[in-house]
């Protein structure tokens, strides 16, 4: 059964017309949600009743009691016609936004929502052309995240925490396609760290749109979880009206770093580098290093080896598997390439390709390490450039 087949259907009480169904609601937090209330237009008044009070049969809908318990409006409910029908929802499995053409209901001993119709079939049914059947596409209810349109700001309604399990890059794709309010609703429903990762994966226009529109409270949490290098990338493109607010939120310390990074363009190493990296003295033993690494939450791939605080080389953590415990780190060095802040992009690409590197250290004139350039960053830029070339 479909929602569209119930909406606007007359409801009879003791053989006489009582009103018509205008909407129904479900509890927001269950995977296969039973309908919790049905809204009936009785004369000019909306009457909200529990689903047990009516009997839905093939040819007629009847009110089973005249002692109707009036239910109050509950903000936690998701109204199917109001919040779901014709709106966009997130298809978690398909990792995209889809439009709800109809809602699929199951009428067992309880009326339940089992899925949504996103096919052309649903459109035809609602246009009164239900005899035609083409392109039937139903999504099960548990892979859907719906939005709440009740308040001015659109929020994720069904917090099933399925969004959180998605890869940040997939969330980023959805952010790129969503409307402004939905986009902010998604960001606000994620925890700050996930939100930061997803924003970083999105294209530049989307990043700007989010940073310029987030409410100050959320903005603060999210921006503090973002990588400095990513903020620096969009910093100069931010609307001047909003960039002041972002500067305030960042705090003097981070702002200084963002400014120094964004002073370089992303065509030279200085604009691409991350300032956090793992550095060890050449005399440290493998054993001591391993012990230190165990304390880290994120194990780095590459360790920067320095001697008297000047750069001497890098070592791959995977090489430690075969190294003797007592070996000093200077004997495990696998690469000695380095670049400085002004090294141009093309040269960086050449070094990465020629030496099969994952990380390149950036050093100053005294060969003191300042940061690292990661190959992922380079790939991202090349990818964006390809896309831009296709679009120009």
């Amino acid at each position, binding site marked *: 059964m479909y929602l569209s087949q119930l909406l606007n259907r007359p409801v009879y009480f003791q053989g006489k017309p009582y009103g018509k169904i205008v909407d129904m609601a479900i509890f927001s937090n269950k995977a296969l949600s039973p309908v919790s209330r049905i809204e009936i237009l009785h004369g000019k008044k909306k009457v909200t009743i529990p689903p047990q009070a009516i009997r839905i049969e093939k040819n007629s809908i009847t009110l089973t009691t005249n002692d109707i318990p009036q239910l109050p409006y509950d903000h936690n409910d998701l109204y199917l016609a109001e919040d779901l*029908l*014709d*709106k*966009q929802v997130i298809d978690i499995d398909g990792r995209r936004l*889809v*439009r709800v*053409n109809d809602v699929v209901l199951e009428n067992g001993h309880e009326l339940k929502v089992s899925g949504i119709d*996103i096919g*052309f079939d649903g*459109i035809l049914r*609602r*246009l009164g052309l239900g005899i035609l059947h083409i392109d039937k596409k139903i999504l099960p209810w548990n892979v859907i995240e719906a939005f709440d349109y009740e308040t*001015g700001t659109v929020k994720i309604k069904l917090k099933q925490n399925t969004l959180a399990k998605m890869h940040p890059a997939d969330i980023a794709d959805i952010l790129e396609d*969503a*409307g*402004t*309010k*939905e*986009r902010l609703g998604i960001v606000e429903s994620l925890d700050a760290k996930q939100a930061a990762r997803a924003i970083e994966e999105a294209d530049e*226009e*989307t990043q*700007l*749109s989010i940073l*310029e*529109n987030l409410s100050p409270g959320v903005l603060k949490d999210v921006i503090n979880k973002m990588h400095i290098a990513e903020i620096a990338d969009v910093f*100069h*493109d*931010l*609307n*001047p*009206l*909003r960039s002041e607010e972002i500067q305030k939120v960042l705090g003097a310390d981070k702002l200084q770093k963002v400014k120094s990074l*964004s*002073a*370089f*363009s*992303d*065509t030279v190493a200085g*604009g691409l580098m991350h300032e956090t990296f793992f550095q060890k003295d050449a005399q440290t033993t493998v054993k001591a290093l391993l012990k230190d690494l165990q304390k880290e939450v994120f194990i780095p791939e590459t360790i920067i080896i320095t001697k008297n605080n000047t750069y001497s080389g890098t070592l791959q953590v995977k090489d430690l598997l075969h190294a003797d415990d007592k070996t000093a780190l200077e004997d495990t060095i696998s690469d000695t390439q380095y670049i400085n802040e002004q090294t141009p*992009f093309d040269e960086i690409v050449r070094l990465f390709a020629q030496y099969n590197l994952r990380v390149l250290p950036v050093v100053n004139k005294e060969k003191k390490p300042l940061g690292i350039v990661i190959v992922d960053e380079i790939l991202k*830029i090349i990818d964006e*450039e390809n896309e831009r070339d*296709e*679009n*120009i």
Partner: protein
Amino acid sequence: MRRTNEMKIFRNYFVRLLPLLAILGPGIISGSVDNDAGGIATYSVAGANFGYSLLWVLLITTFCLAITQEIGARMGLATGKGLASLIREKFGIRWTAFVMAVLLIANLGTIAAEFAGIAASLEIFNISKFISVPIAAILVFILVTKGNFKRLEQLFLILSAFYLVYIVSAVLGHPNWTLGIKNLIVPDFHFNKSYILTLIAVIGTTITPWGQFFIQDYIVDKKLSKEDLPVERADVFLGSFITNIISFFIIVACAATIFAAGKVVTNAKDAALALQPLAGQFASWLFAFGLFNASIFGAALVPVSTSYVITEAFGFEGGLDFTFSEAKQFYGLFAFLIATGALFVLLPFVPLFTILFFTQAIGAVLLLPILIFVFILSNDKKLLNGYTNGKFINIVVAITFLLIASSTVAYVISLFL
């Protein structure tokens, strides 16, 4: 090329703040396409057959165009959604189907006009429409689906500098400036059916159903923020005024030459006479080039934007970023629109200029229901949250509506007199 840091700073402080530098924005594109095949033909007819007497309509429609485009830009900025999505979410599937049917008919007319423009321009070189139109249809399909649309868009925009020749030609044609300026400000209404029909066509070729959807989708695609509103506003205003300044000179050029000589326009060769003061015997070649450029651009852009809007409304994948198999409905619709538009032009016994002209008038009438939806949506407080229409804007929308509606009624009455 990667952007250098200096360029980033430049963009930040100048492009966002100085509207003039954002000159190639959506407002300008939308505006230039308004002077498409139907536009050139309609303004030519207006100037050639009625002299300066329709200029006042042009002045009013300039404001109407600027305001309706501004509404589209503002709704796009505030919601991040296209007009089709907003109609679907607010009014449900039935009204959406209705609006899409209206849009489909209006845009099919526009597309037919574009192909008529292609045929008319090549007829000047004695190429039959039965050869030019099928080839153009296939060419447009391949250019859009296999080619690089953004690059084409830029090429066509550069080529649309052609319109400047109308300004030169108008000046060289020694028009009656006093009368022209007077008629621009003081309405000079004639109650006869062909005058009223031309009046409707002038409005319809300037403010179009597809342009209303296009501007909003374009803004949404650029993901601009609410803070960008002043710049976008300037962009659409500037676009509207530039478009209509060109329209003004097309009408004046035709009035100074064809109307002054007491001739009427029935085909492209006649319309080309307006360029004679500038180009002499090459006038018809120059006209053919300009009409061809405008028509090809329109024949590519209007079907793409129509397919995009309709797939958006019904929730299918749509856009040139998708492959054929990912977006079957989008490409299917695109092919259908081109084929139908082209076939319409190939109908025997239908003069090309009749298609070019009548489709614009029909477009104006079909704009009426769309304006109602735009009006309701743009006054929705919950949806736009502080970005609803001001009083002045609502008055201009009402004037636009009444102008088209009353002219249409007047036309129907004039048919019985």
